[in-house]
């Protein structure tokens, strides 16, 4: 007898079931992590507490958690605009780097012009850098129907290698005695602080509201949603599909580019190949877990920031190796994401002999 497991999409999703699945996922994540921590020879409760302590335990730590939240929020908003249109923009990472690249160009070349002007120029440059990088796959998608997932992913590698080239070549700091680093920005090119945290947090909050209004209360936002559901519907309704795709991607890439500007100016004070370190990919998960809802993105980003900040803290607090801390983060992520699948699909045991013919 052939026993197969079949995957079925759920027709209607039961609320209590969802809650049960999610609770179970978190429980399993904690259980597996607990076993792993025990295996490392530490007290799991202490480690978990310490993660919270590392994220909230002092004013400094709380600020760090917020600083980690900011780029996640802005990038996720960018990803959201593209995903609403079912344009799978995996290229957030590259768009961050290209935004950082163009704004760094301004920061390094015009380091002495007045601060407000310089920062405005850098912001514009960041948005243009990310926007143009996203425009390339958008044009190809609109004109030739190319696969945007692969296209945007490949562009990430080109962007990162471009920064590497600059760091090891033309932009290498001549004062670093041959060490490959790009010079630091001047004070004029550094974003100011507001209540002790760089002003990116305010930009993030404003953008959350703007994107919410854009997606829900403007014609273009509505068009993006319609085309996401069905391109043909949009076309029959008289929408200019190509134009909508291109505008949406410029916004999407522009927001990612802005993240690059903020990170290079306020956090790193320079451009380097380590600038993003995966924000563009984490943002995809955050956008997805936020159910493509702009208002939820700050919350989910904050939870992710706790995971990252707390994960860094336990490394020094418990001398847990970096790789182990990353495994913990990965475990929690895997279960939470995995539960998403079970929320939308169910598995049934298929004992019939015709299972094979039916396909899985």
């Amino acid at each position: 007898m052939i026993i197969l497991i079949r995957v079925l999409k759920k027709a209607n999703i039961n609320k209590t079931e969802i809650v049960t699945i999610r609770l179970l996922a978190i429980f399993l994540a904690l259980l597996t992590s607990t076993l792993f921590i025990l295996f490392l020879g530490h007290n799991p409760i202490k480690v978990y507490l310490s993660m919270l302590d590392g994220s909230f335990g002092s004013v400094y730590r709380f600020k760090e958690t917020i600083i980690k939240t900011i780029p996640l929020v802005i990038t996720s908003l960018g990803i959201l605009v593209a995903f609403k249109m079912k344009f799978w923009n995996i290229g957030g990472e590259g768009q961050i780097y290209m935004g950082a690249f163009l704004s760094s160009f301004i920061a390094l070349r015009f380091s002495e012009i007045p601060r407000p002007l310089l920062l405005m120029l850098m912001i514009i440059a960041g948005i243009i850098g990310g926007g143009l990088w996203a425009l390339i796959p958008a044009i190809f998608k609109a004109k030739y129907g190319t696969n945007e997932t692969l296209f945007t992913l490949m562009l990430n590698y080109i962007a990162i290698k471009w920064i590497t080239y600059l760091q090891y070549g033309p932009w290498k700091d001549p004062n670093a005695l041959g060490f490959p680093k790009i010079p630091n920005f001047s004070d004029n090119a550094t974003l100011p602080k507001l209540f002790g945290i760089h002003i990116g947090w305010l930009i993030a909050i404003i953008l959350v509201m703007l994107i919410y209004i854009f997606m829900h209360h403007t014609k273009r936002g509505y068009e993006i949603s319609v085309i996401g559901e069905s391109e043909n519907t949009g076309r029959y309704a008289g929408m200019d599909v190509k134009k909508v795709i291109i505008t949406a991607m410029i916004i999407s890439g522009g927001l990612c580019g802005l993240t690059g500007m903020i990170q290079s100016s306020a956090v790193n004070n320079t451009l380097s190949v380590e600038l993003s370190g995966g924000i563009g990919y984490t943002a995809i998960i955050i956008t997805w877990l936020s159910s493509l809802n702009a208002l939820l993105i700050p919350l989910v980003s904050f939870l992710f920031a706790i995971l990252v900040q707390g994960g860094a803290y336990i490394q020094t607090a418990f001398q847990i190796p970096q790789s182990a801390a990353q495994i913990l983060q990965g475990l929690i992520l895997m279960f939470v994401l995995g539960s998403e699948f079970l929320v939308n699909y169910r598995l049934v045991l298929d004992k019939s002999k015709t299972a094979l013919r039916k396909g899985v």
Partner: protein
Amino acid sequence: MLKRTVVFILILALTASVLAGCGNGSVEKPASNVENNLKVGFIYVGPIGDGGWSFAHNEGRLYLEKELGVETIYRESVPEGPDVEKVMKDMIDQGAKVIFATSFGYMDYMEKVSKEYPDIKFLHCSGYKTTENMANYFGRMYEPRYLSGIVAGLKTKSNNIGYVAAFEIPEVIRGINAFTLGVRSVNPEAKVTVRWTHTWYDPVKEKEAAKALLDEGADVIAQHQDTAGPQQAAEEAGAFAVGYNTDSFDKAPGAYMTAPIWNWGPYYVEQVKAVMDNKWESHSYWGGMKDGIVELGALSENAPNDASQRVEEVKEKILNGEFNIFTGPLKDQDGNIAVEDGKVLTDTEMLSMNWFVEGVEGKIEK
């Protein structure tokens, strides 16, 4: 959709707070206010299990803990970029009063942070910058490197020695030059070919670079890298190798001949003790073989027979100050006189070295 996610987040928050609640009674917080007990932070560029550079520093940290009983914390695999600034601040937030940052690329960030935290003592390894509360420290690794060059020069038959090197900075260039001078002191025909990896720690890249050098005819491989990858490449090719950082005979027993090695422990103890006694001052430390911070590791059976005696002779002269490695006349790569006869390079000249001596095949990108 919205409701679902809200519920999910609430549950997460709830679970977290429940966990926090359970623990409160029984769990003591990781020590955060240690006023009387000094806490020392170490920042490493690779994992402590790299069997090389970071491993050697970590041995020093463990020695420090054992000798003085101070509490230490560390972070490994910290990139040489802006991230290190945050790592330092994290450590200060966790109560560290002394921080050792053990890679060149941390220098500018440590300089910046040191100005923000005047009460914390900062020590940077392998750079050249100091501030009121930031010292730099390093060892004259070029001395044992010269000795290891003697071993390599006696061993090579093809007169082609490969050198896997990390970055085009003075520290690495100085090491290559000293090694080459050592090689050519016993074998004037031999050449040292350099390949850059642009990474301190990357077992695969290091090994690949060594393989390429072996393919080009090298029969001895030397390295300025943090893992035994190049030595393993040599072993696989039936060639021989000079390691770096620690004695890594076990990692490539068929190839390993010797290695110039680090001994950080005593310096760490001395510095932390000075901090405890309130006697610490900013400084530039550059100790040599006579101080014990660097030495040549024991020669293995792979080393040529006559090496031991030659090495001992020169070692004696270095220890009693009779012999300085960078003494003229020295020619540069193109055969021009770079150091006049009888002139000895000053520390400043050595610390900013950006040219290769005669016998080195390779290019320094500027």
